[in-house]
């Protein structure tokens, strides 16, 4: 007898098939992982289990009884509570009001928070004033307080610093000990390998296998996720934890004028005197724990925030962008962390890519259709964007959306690419494609500054890395030396001496 049995469930949105035929069983007292590339149908399956969507076909059984969930409330009554990818707390209400709205008893939530070492939260705070990681923990505590048989965690660790993620894992294990179950969705296969009893792999809307990750290993999961198509992908960037180390992809002529020079940059009290160069053909990584000034650094360079001091030069001439328009004119373009921020979700792939072509007033006349079509086509081909759902960008999977945000700059042309965590929440296949593309672009002589929260990525793509701590560059490492341990040490503000000790 299983706690949850999903049989042959299908769901489509218009012409796009999100789930072809998915099966999933979760036993009592089990931590079960659901993995798959972007667009494989994980989020859709979660939404079917929580009453957000209704399946076109197939059945969902809880404790051997077929259940229908016409609304999120009905799924909660059946003992399923979820922490969704996006926070579901209402920003304009206080925590206490949010709990009252959802009929969850405040003392129960308080107890759950205490178990997670978060007892100091004031329930009178307005949710919109709280930082994102804390909201994720509140969402979790609220779900736990409902005392569900099945707890669904959809990408909860993506937005969490490692110390909070650890507490989530403790909660999961504790939950299993009490004989209840967790459905855990994550792109971080390491987490799946360490904490999950079984893992079901989705590919293209169908389940392609269930395995015990401890026995089969992460590599087997990846193979299953990628399927036969994986052989076509460039093998340059490999799975995290393997041996391929970037020993300096490019030969850099140090005599050349740097593409970007940043001198003593000051932004609010978040960035305190940061200086560095990016040379043509170089990929410079930025690594930091949550909230060490990386957001402000990228915002200032991209013209989204005013800087309070310091100088920035592009190709030797000073720039001080006060709007993104200025930065783009200077040749510095941004791919932000939140894809939704960069895209026009309801417009087509074509329009999203061609948009920056018309930044200059001189371009406001008739559209040169042939040129536009050519530029867009080239960008789409180069990035291998899946254009099946191209009429509205919001219907694309996360990985494809991210490709569109990069593609628009390819079409428009640029000199410096600022990437803020470009592969967060993206499947491994697309990640490889993006890594390969970055190396290619660098080889063509552009400069890249890339913040990444996935430390192994540094060695896979970057030439060197700057480690930020409390708004300062505390360490600069060549890629060879930038393994996870070294980066983590530096990112925690430990000096080399302390690291050794």
């Amino acid at each position, binding site marked *: 007898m299983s706690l949850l049995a999903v049989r042959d469930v299908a769901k489509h949105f218009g012409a796009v098939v999100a789930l072809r035929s998915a099966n999933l069983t979760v036993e009592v007292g089990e931590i079960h992982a659901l993995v798959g590339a972007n667009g494989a149908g994980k989020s859709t399956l979660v939404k079917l289990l929580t009453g957000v969507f209704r399946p076109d076909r197939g059945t969902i059984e809880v404790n051997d009884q077929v259940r229908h969930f016409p609304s*999120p409330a009905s799924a909660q009554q059946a003992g399923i509570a979820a922490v969704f990818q996006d926070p579901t707390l209402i920003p304009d*209400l206080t925590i206490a009001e949010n709990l009252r*709205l*959802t009929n969850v008893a405040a003392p129960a939530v308080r107890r759950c928070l205490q178990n997670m070492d978060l007892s100091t939260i004031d329930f009178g*705070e307005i949710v919109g004033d709280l930082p994102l990681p804390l909201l994720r923990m509140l969402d979790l505590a609220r779900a736990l307080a409902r005392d569900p048989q099945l707890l669904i965690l959809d990408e909860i660790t993506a937005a969490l610093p490692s110390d909070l993620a650890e507490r989530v894992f403790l909660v999961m294990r504790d939950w299993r000990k009490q004989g209840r179950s967790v459905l855990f969705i994550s792109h971080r296969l390491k987490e799946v390998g360490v904490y999950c009893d079984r893992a079901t792999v989705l590919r293209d809307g169908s389940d392609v296998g269930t395995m015990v990750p401890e026995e089969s290993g992460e590599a087997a999961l990846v193979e299953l996720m990628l399927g036969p198509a994986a052989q076509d992908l460039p093998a340059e960037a490999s799975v995290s934890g393997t041996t391929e180390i970037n020993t300096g992809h490019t030969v850099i002529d140090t005599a050349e004028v740097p593409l970007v020079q940043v001198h003593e940059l000051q932004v609010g009290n978040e960035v305190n005197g940061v200086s560095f160069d990016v040379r043509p053909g170089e990929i410079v990584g930025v690594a930091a724990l949550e909230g060490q000034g990386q957001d402000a650094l990228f915002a200032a360079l991209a013209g989204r925030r005013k800087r309070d001091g310091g100088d920035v030069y592009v190709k030797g001439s000073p720039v001080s962008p006060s709007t993104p328009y200025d930065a783009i004119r200077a040749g510095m373009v941004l791919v932000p962390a939140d894809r939704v921020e960069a895209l026009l979700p309801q417009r087509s792939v074509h329009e999203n890519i061609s948009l920056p072509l018309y930044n200059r007033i001189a371009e406001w006349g008739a559209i040169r259709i042939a040129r536009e079509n050519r530029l867009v086509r080239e960008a789409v081909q180069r990035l291998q964007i899946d254009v099946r759902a191209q009429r509205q960008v919001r219907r694309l999977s996360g990985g494809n959306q991210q490709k569109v945000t990069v593609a628009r700059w390819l079409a428009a042309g640029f000199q410096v690419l600022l990437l803020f965590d470009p592969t967060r929440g993206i499947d491994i296949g697309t990640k490889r494609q993006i890594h390969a593309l970055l190396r290619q672009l660098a080889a063509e002589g552009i400069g890249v500054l890339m913040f990444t929260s996935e430390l192994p990525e540094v060695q896979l793509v970057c030439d060197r890395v700057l480690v930020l701590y409390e708004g300062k560059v505390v360490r600069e490492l060549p890629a060879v030396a930038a393994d996870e341990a070294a980066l983590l040490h530096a990112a925690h503000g430990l000096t080399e001496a302390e690291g050794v000790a």
Partner: protein
Amino acid sequence: MSSVAAATGATSFIPASTRRRFLRRNTWTLAIYGVFLALLLVEKIVHSSLGAFDFENLVIYSLPLAFAAMGQATVVLIGGIDLSIGPMMALVNVVAATWLATASFQQSILYALVIIVGVAALGALTGLVITVSRVPDIIVTLATGFIWSGVALRVLPSPGGGVQSVDFSNLVNGELWGVIPEGALVLAVIILVVWLPFYRSKMGLSVYALGSNRTAAFLSGVNVARTRIAAYALGGAFVAMAGLALTAATSTGDPNSAANYTLNSVASVVLGGVSLAGGRGGLLGPVAAAFVLGLIGIILGFMQVDPNWALVIQGVIVVLVMLFAGVLTLRRQQ
């Protein structure tokens, strides 16, 4: 001495953070009441014999807009907008003027209740249509506005009717003990008896949740359809009161009397600190804003400004206030 101690004891009993948040959430409402008091001072200067009569005048003049603003605010809080408020007030006005022309006080009250319930039902229907059709609020209410206008003209093609019961019209025009305008009392009672319990109920929370983040509200298990229908129904009830107040104030039915109320209600809502995106604000702000708009009109009247120019000046004042508030908000964010 002991009362002072008790008072300070009472304030320190409320934690500082709670007071700070209360101020933060209600800055705008408090500010708009400040503007209202400042304008009263201005009126005192331009019109030295300011007295109870003037307050009564202000209440009679502003009460319909105050109720209309409450109706608009209820709908705007869920992230909607109601463009049928003016036409609906006109419809209420002509129906009420027809029914009340020969009614006793008791009958008048009964008719008023029937009208309030009926308009609330029409509001619920509007909310249902928006929910089922998924057509945006602005389009549905624009369309229903045409319907109410047409029906109002069918009911009473040219001005006429009236209010027979003096006691009934005194609910808006009268005064208690010769000082307190009864209209203000009615407004206060409605806010205390209708809005406050609603605001404190789970349905009230749902209204704010829906306006604040519809997806999050849905995922939290809020019944989106029921909440929207409830907000439109309550908004409808307030609009009915606005139409009744207009009828009592003018003692006549006129299908063209309420044309300006739609946009004025939006202006009051915005001026009253309700976010047009929904989820933020309350009803006390818009009510004060309605009185501010009324007071500006009255002051300009005393100053014998040409009514056409008065409209221009009112518009400029609204823009300036919004500009000032916008700059303040921007500075606070930085």
